[in-house]
């Protein structure tokens, strides 16, 4: 049993049970790997390949095709701001710039403490609630920088608590 199987035994068994063959479970398993490592790391790919009985090449190919798998290391919170036209009309592009300045990161970059990665993305289908972003695939809507600062504080605390809790 590899690391992922040990840690997520129940979820993996449940996922595998939903499909007629192991190969079909590759995408949900890649999400588990991404959750574990913060990105689809080489060790994640190898373990998913092992579980699905596929060549690691095929798993990497799938991870490369879909944009919701990240093949680069990411911060704990992956902030994807939609800057497409309707959102931009509601000030999303400025919001995106302000957010990067506040966190002191470049586009696609991660904060020095490894907490936040900021990048802009195409439409997330929430134009009416722009500016908005997706954080680890959950939406945060009707944002401005003040609300954003509160959220950032909240996320920082979450992590601190986890760290303290585990001590």
């Amino acid at each position, binding site marked *: 049993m590899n690391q992922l199987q040990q840690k997520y035994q129940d979820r993996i068994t449940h996922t595998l049970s939903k499909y007629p063959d192991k190969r079909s479970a590759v995408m949900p398993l890649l999400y588990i790997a991404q959750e574990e490592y913060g990105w689809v790391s080489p060790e994640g*790919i190898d373990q998913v390949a092992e579980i699905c009985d596929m*060549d*690691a*090449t*095929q*798993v*990497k*190919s799938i991870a*490369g*095709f879909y944009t919701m798998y990240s093949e680069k290391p990411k911060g704990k919170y992956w902030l994807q701001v939609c800057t497409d036209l309707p959102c931009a009309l509601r000030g999303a592009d400025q919001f995106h710039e302000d957010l990067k300045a506040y966190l002191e990161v470049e586009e696609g970059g991660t904060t020095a403490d490894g907490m936040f990665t900021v990048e802009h993305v195409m439409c997330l289908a929430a134009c009416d609630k722009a500016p908005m972003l997706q954080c680890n695939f959950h939406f945060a809507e009707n944002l401005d920088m003040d609300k954003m600062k509160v959220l950032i504080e909240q996320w920082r605390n979450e992590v601190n608590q986890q760290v303290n809790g585990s001590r």
Partner: protein
Amino acid sequence: MVKIYIDDREYDVPAGMNLVDAAKWHADNDIPVFCYHPKMEPVGMCRMCLVQQGAIEKDRATGEVVLDEHGQPKVRWMPKLQTACTQRVTDGMVIRTNTAEVDQARQNVIEFLLTSHPLDCPICDKGGECPLQNLTMEHGPGMSRMQFQDKQHLDKHVPLGDLIYLDEERCIQCARCVRFQDELVGDDVLAFHERGRRLQIITNSNPGFDTYFSGNTTDICPVGALTTADFRFGARPWELTEVPSIDPFDAAGSNISLSIRLDRDFGGKAMIKRVMPRQNESVNEIWISDKARFGHHFTRSENRAQSPMIRNANGQLMQTTWEEALKSVASILKAAGKDVAAIAGSQMSNEDLWALREVMSAVGSTRLGAWPITHAGADLVAQVGVGVGSNLGDLGKGDAVLIIASDLEEEVPIWRLRLKLAKERGVFLAVANARHTRMEDFATACLRYDYGMAAHFLSNLRAENPDLAQQLAQANNLIILTGAEGLSLDGSRALMQAAANFLIETGHVGKPNNGLLSTFPGPNGMGQYYMGFTPENTQDIMINPPKVLIVAQADLYHDDPSASQWVHEVETVINLTLFADETLSHEAHTILPIQSFAERDGTFTNGERRVQRFYTAQGPIADALPAWQVLSRLGEKLGRGKAKLSAATVMADIAKNVPAFAGVTYKEISNVKRQFPDVGGRDLYYGGTAYQNRGGLGVQLKTTAESGEAINTAPVELVNAPRSQAGQMLIVPTTVLYNRERTFLPSALMHPRVMMPYAEINSADAAKLGIKSGDVVEIVADTMRVRVKAHVNGGAPEGSIVLPRHLTTEAVPMTMTLGRVSKVD
């Protein structure tokens, strides 16, 4: 047959044929393609093959052809151009390939493919034989509307493993390489990554591009995106001369083409720059293994023997002339009376072997030994081998193949590839061995027996595996393919006899695609038999060493741990060899340097008894001569008549004296005929850069079963295999494709792929002995003592140690034996 119309002419073509193939084969009309390949399923990805397509209209009620106002059949055209590669011909299909619309479409596709192509043809290995280049010249727009600065730039030097390089910018995303690995080989270690213009080929296997067939992707890649580490920037294709040759490594006898050029790296002599496949649809189609492609460096090894040498009175080897050397050998042979024996390796050509036999006849000795002594039963292949006209590519539904005691992927990779495809066409493929082998991944049925019990298993098949026996017996065509893993020489003979009996009893002999095949090591295992050299004789030579022993192209000390003992008892050793540093040199009295397959011509007889010709390609090494010439001159000195002047005249002698070769001539062996698919012509885009066969398709020798003689079964003499007991384990020597044999080691680019010496141990045994994976263990058996890394896994059955041959510098036994294993601290 159906009627189709291409550019207003009528053709009869077989129903259901692919339209691109049909147009090419029957109408000589080359529809340009990039992604389509005649050996693979169409995917319609590149759009290069667009044609105007229609059908002759028929009246629905009457079924009669509708005529237009001019009384001509009316054609209902499709509104848009269609991809020809995804169409199968049907009756009344009408195609136009020469309209302005089609021209325009072709031009547009080319222009699109070139939007981000680097156009670095002047430094590209493919330049000169590149489908994209050729089709751009023929159909391209000549001018680009794209801005050069806007091109997408990607990585140009991406190693896909150690053997193949990828240039991401040149790739046109046709997926031929991906599909080859996936559909044809079954090693799906290539895939696409990302999307759109950034789409690239990746491999993520360990090691990268982990397959024995990677080189073939460079042949079928329609651009210079995939190139080999061996040939990269080595020469321009138009400087090369293609010389037909034969893969010198295994029993398949794959047809290859040696691309040579006069080269300053080789003293201005002709030098092999690369090895390419040569089409022979009955043998290797258009594929070769990476060993065949990259293993040619031994021919130019710095250890090649340069001149004849004789040991002087002080025991030193001194250089001499051929005349002196041959005179000396002749007098040694005369003085020895009849007490002479010869051992010949399986890379000797038929002509070499015959000339050696003539020398032996001259001294009155019949002690002709074949080397190595792993596989017995070549005589049975001569009797009931696969019939004339056999082609693994013809096997299909209703046919069956049994592979027994062989790790086929490691022993004869091309047969493994072709049988994997046969299985997919519906062949019942059974694989029997004492352990898991790669072939099982492709098998219909997998069977297990204990090591040493292969012959027992097959003899008792009807009693113990009645279902399997019935499947095999009832097959329309049946081939039994044997190896010799886990068998002694006697055991191998028993297995061959059991296989022959089964084939005879079930009526599967004397016709194409029926009979016996075996993975004889080297390219000429069957030639050894026909020329009179047998492993049984060798065994006898080892037990009763002669006074004088002629060793010809046989690496005794590297193959046999007991060699030092029995060779020592020989008074005089005469060694015909490629390499000067063979351990045998210390024993040899005379060293006669001979030429490799690349430097002279000759023939090999492959496992299917196909006599195939190889031609002189590379320049000679110092004084080395072809073995047949050396031996024929020696024969002259021994009173066997004038020495022969060419390999062809030696073949004439063989044809006169060896019944199976009656009527075989170089002319006949060199005959060629048009083969489907038509690859390697002017239109490289269709099939890739595999070469057309201009050197000959070979002649398959008739089996006794085909010459009308009655073939009878003979009793199987089962031998008791050793059993592991009281601390002794079975040491099972196995074959791995990439090893440290003299003829492979000099190919330095393969070194990363050659495993460090290892042995596989069953986890239960390992636990008992306190051995973990990665531990160094010492294995001691009879005359062998080796140290290797332990691989603890489920691969080796309990009680046995799987020990690959030719990975260690010390010799490993040729056949299974008992021995002890201990951990080294």
